[in-house]
């Protein structure tokens, strides 16, 4: 177990270091999120939505921004290995699950970094009132993890395809549909301060994330070694 963590950690550190030097994924996600936020804030602003609709609509908008930002850059970690011809040596050097673990951690960290910047900005610009801040953090963490684990395996799949185009979002969005529904409901519940609603949404997100993790562990070697 420790060996696995050390090796996966090495993959993660390598990805993070490369990313810090090129900033391709950071730029893609960050710029996408900021431009969309600016567009939403400009066209809708804090006062155009009726008070009663706010928790729901603002939660939905927030997650749509996060989801599409993820679509803009989270395939990077795998696609880059193929495009710069480093995948073969990685395949021959590291165990499949080590690669998966490292990439998953990388995608999770990128997403959480995005949220750390995006969510406070969104709250301020859109006047989004959240009654249970602790609950929101839990939803963002669990939602971010499930989003990362799903996009990681899809990115691994599309990296092996010969023509990629919009394949990443085409393949990801159907799989992410239940997650999107759960996190929007969860965020709405924490905004309204309903502990019960937040709890059930959180349970759904966590179990979806758990199922995706198990299935990925079983299937990833078949994708990576093919």
């Amino acid at each position, binding site marked *: 177990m420790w*060996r696995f963590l*050390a*090796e996966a950690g*090495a*993959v993660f*550190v*390598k990805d993070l*270091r*490369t990313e810090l*030097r*090129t900033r391709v994924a950071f730029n893609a996600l960050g710029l996408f999120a900021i431009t969309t936020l600016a567009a939403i804030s400009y066209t809708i602003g804090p006062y155009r939505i009726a008070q009663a609709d706010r928790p729901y609509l603002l939660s939905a908008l927030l997650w749509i921004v996060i989801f599409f930002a993820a679509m803009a850059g989270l395939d990077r970690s795998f696609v880059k290995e193929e495009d*710069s*011809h*480093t995948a*073969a*040596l*990685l*395949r*021959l*050097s*590291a*165990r499949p699950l*080590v690669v998966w673990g490292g990439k998953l951690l990388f995608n999770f960290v990128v997403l959480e970094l995005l949220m750390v910047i995006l969510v406070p900005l969104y709250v301020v610009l859109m006047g989004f009132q959240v009654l249970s801040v602790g609950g929101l953090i839990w939803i963002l963490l669990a939602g971010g993890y499930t989003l990362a684990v799903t996009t990681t395996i899809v990115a691994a799949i599309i990296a092996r395809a010969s023509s990629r185009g919009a394949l990443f979002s085409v393949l990801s969005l159907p799989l992410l549909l239940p997650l999107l529904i759960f996190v929007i409901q969860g965020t709405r519940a924490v905004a309204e301060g309903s502990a019960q609603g937040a709890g059930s949404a959180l349970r759904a997100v966590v179990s979806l994330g758990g199922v995706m993790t198990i299935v990925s562990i079983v299937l990833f070697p078949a994708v990576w070694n093919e």
Partner: protein
Amino acid sequence: MSGGITIEFEELAKRFDMRVVFRSVSGRVGPGEVLAITGPNGSGKSTLVTILCGLVRATRGTVRYRAGSDGEIPRESWRDHLGIVAPAMSLYEELDALENLRFFALVRGVRDAEKRCRASLERVGLDPERKTQVRGFSTGMHQRLKIAQAILHDPEVLFLDEPGANLDPAGQGWLEELVGGQRRAGKTIVLATNDLREMEWGTSRVALSG
């Protein structure tokens, strides 16, 4: 450490969607031997290497790794025993030489990683303290680094696909010495090349036709 590894392959054929690369290739290479794979461009030398190291599945035919008397090594574990240099396999351009080797040492779980990485770099004539990213390397330096990566974990099997490409005469001399040393140490070496001098290192040969 076991008594080296023998690779046997029989009647390998590979077809990509529309194109047949080769129809039936067989051979065998044992410890202390160098198998030279030769043939014109496009005859499938590199493809054969990727099949032998387990990256690509053959359309037909079998490859076996035998470890002395211990019997056959399963395909999933081949990678623990081999090092490879190939034109189509790159290192990480955004990292410097030492960072690259350190990464491969860590994911392979090499002991004394730091010492081994530095020793490996010095062996191929690169300065471990140089902090240039690989993208700033000349092709010759990149080739040296790839060789350092291949021998980093002291593998029993070494795949060398055009190892002398882009090396200066000094580098080629040093490569010859390296291959000779590995051979004497009982390593199994597969060498794909069109270089007449490198072909001479071979103890046996597989010639692919175009």
